């Protein structure tokens, strides 16, 4: 095939995933139209290793600006990766990679599939469920959150439960109980990460000028220093307020 031969051959043989990334870039750098056609064909008809590598290379090509990935070839390739994703996600590396490619090509369709059509029982291992959770978290929408909540209701255990909790913590607004728990943690530990978790939760989704500083002080306690409109909390949080004493800025520095 007319692909940049050396880099492609090395990519197929390379087992180190980080070196694979370098080699993928190398292949992309040397791709011409015929090479791209050959890669799309490899996705359809290649060996498992060739399919996996070819999907990765074409993902990277699709991210590059310009017209190096002709629209007709891109459509063909989209059909292939969508098919792989439906058949194999999240149970094989090719399925995982293909779903990601689908997401990058058509975010809405990939999300709809995962939220509405993907049967959870298709995830045959914990690692598969973790990929499902990761993708739903990355979509970040309300309906993705509802799907995660449904998964949580199935009472999973172990790593899956932990990841679900973390994902829901990102997607759902913090409850009063959650804020109170974070405030207790901050007051007990007085560490940067505890301060970050609390303040981040408090400010989640808020716009500048909407949160009264009293609300912050109530949770964080009195600041270490206060100078005019600037409050400082050890170890690192600077908060600015406007003339109405509402938070207009913050900075961990």
């Amino acid at each position, binding site marked *: 095939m007319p692909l940049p031969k050396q880099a492609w051959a090395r990519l197929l043989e390379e087992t180190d995933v*980080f070196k694979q990334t370098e080699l993928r870039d190398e292949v992309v750098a040397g791709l011409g139209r015929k090479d791209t056609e050959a890669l799309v064909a490899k996705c359809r008809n290649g060996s498992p290793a060739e399919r996996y590598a070819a999907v990765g290379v074409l993902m990277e090509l699709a991210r590059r600006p310009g017209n190096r990935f002709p629209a007709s070839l891109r459509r063909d390739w989209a059909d292939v990766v969508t098919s792989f994703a439906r058949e194999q996600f999240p149970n094989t590396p090719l399925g995982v990679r293909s779903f990601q490619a689908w997401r990058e090509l058509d975010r809405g369709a990939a999300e709809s599939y995962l939220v509405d059509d993907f049967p959870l029982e298709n995830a045959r291992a914990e690692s598969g469920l973790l990929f499902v959770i990761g993708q739903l978290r990355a979509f970040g929408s309300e309906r993705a959150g509802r799907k995660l909540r449904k998964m949580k209701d199935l009472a999973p255990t172990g790593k899956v439960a932990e990841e679900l909790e973390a994902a829901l913590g990102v997607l759902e607004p913090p409850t009063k109980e959650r804020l109170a728990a974070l405030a207790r943690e901050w007051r007990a530990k007085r560490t940067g990460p505890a301060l970050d978790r609390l303040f981040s939760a408090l400010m989640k989704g808020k716009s500048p000028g909407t949160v009264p500083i009293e609300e912050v002080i109530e949770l964080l306690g009195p600041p270490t220093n206060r100078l005019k409109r600037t409050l400082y909390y050890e170890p690192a949080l600077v908060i600015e307020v406007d003339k109405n004493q509402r938070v207009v*800025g913050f900075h961990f520095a």
Partner: protein
Amino acid sequence: MSKRLSSSRSISSRAAAGFCLLTLVLSGAPVSGAEPFCPLTFRNLVMKELGGAELLINADKNLKAVKDVPGLKVAFRRLRQDEVALLEQGVDAEQSIETLLRAVVNPNVTKEEMAKALTKSEFLRGGFGQGADERFIGVLQSNGTPFSTNWMINLPAGNRGHYFEAAAAYNAMTDGIRFLPGYGSGTLVVNKSDVLGMGFTALTTAGERVQGDLVTKIPTGVRYFDWKAQYPPGLEYDLDQLRRVKDALMDRKVEDVIFAIEDGSVPSQTWLNAVTAYNAELVTQGRNPIRIGFVGTF
């Protein structure tokens, strides 16, 4: 203000001894146009090129922290004397801020435009740190200057001066080095090719800001994101924050993320483990791993 100037003076004194830009690239991805990667270990690099007990202490700590990172390679470049001189101009007076910005950012920006975009109070204020940056970008755009020349915008965030990073980044860019150390909030880098980057200051609330605010303001065409890591000590990004930020960036077609670690900061094993674990996830998905850059000033 006094704190900012004090910080800058200490930088200035170190600048006199020469500046060096080091990049440690996780994943070993080559840095386009950079000097060839050097096979030296970090310690040997420091011994050969720089010397100095205090420096060695920092370097040793960093070496210990990063030695087990897969695919780690080292590249370095010492700044030229004229670059150091540029830094010297920018450290002691507000007038020099303008001088530096004019030299670094865009010589055609008029004083009036600059004043309009950056009032003194805005320029020096901390807070979100983005407003001034974005206004300045706005001036450049309204000035008809396309994103096609070498620009480096790196305004002070909060009360810290970032002049040396600005100049280092600028000069790295002019030599074609694609790693950029600028880590003031809103650092935007554009060069003659299609390589654009945007910096992000060290906020562990970065996930929130990227998702809800800054990410929506990334100019079209930005290809990678420079994210300051490990400052202040103890405020480290965890796996969840890494995911949140990179996922949000992906939706803006920004796939490449580089962490900058400043001289003297010691990446914790916890943080490195989080990055390494996340990178394993990313490459499985066919995505690009997060890279780590080390910025040293000596």
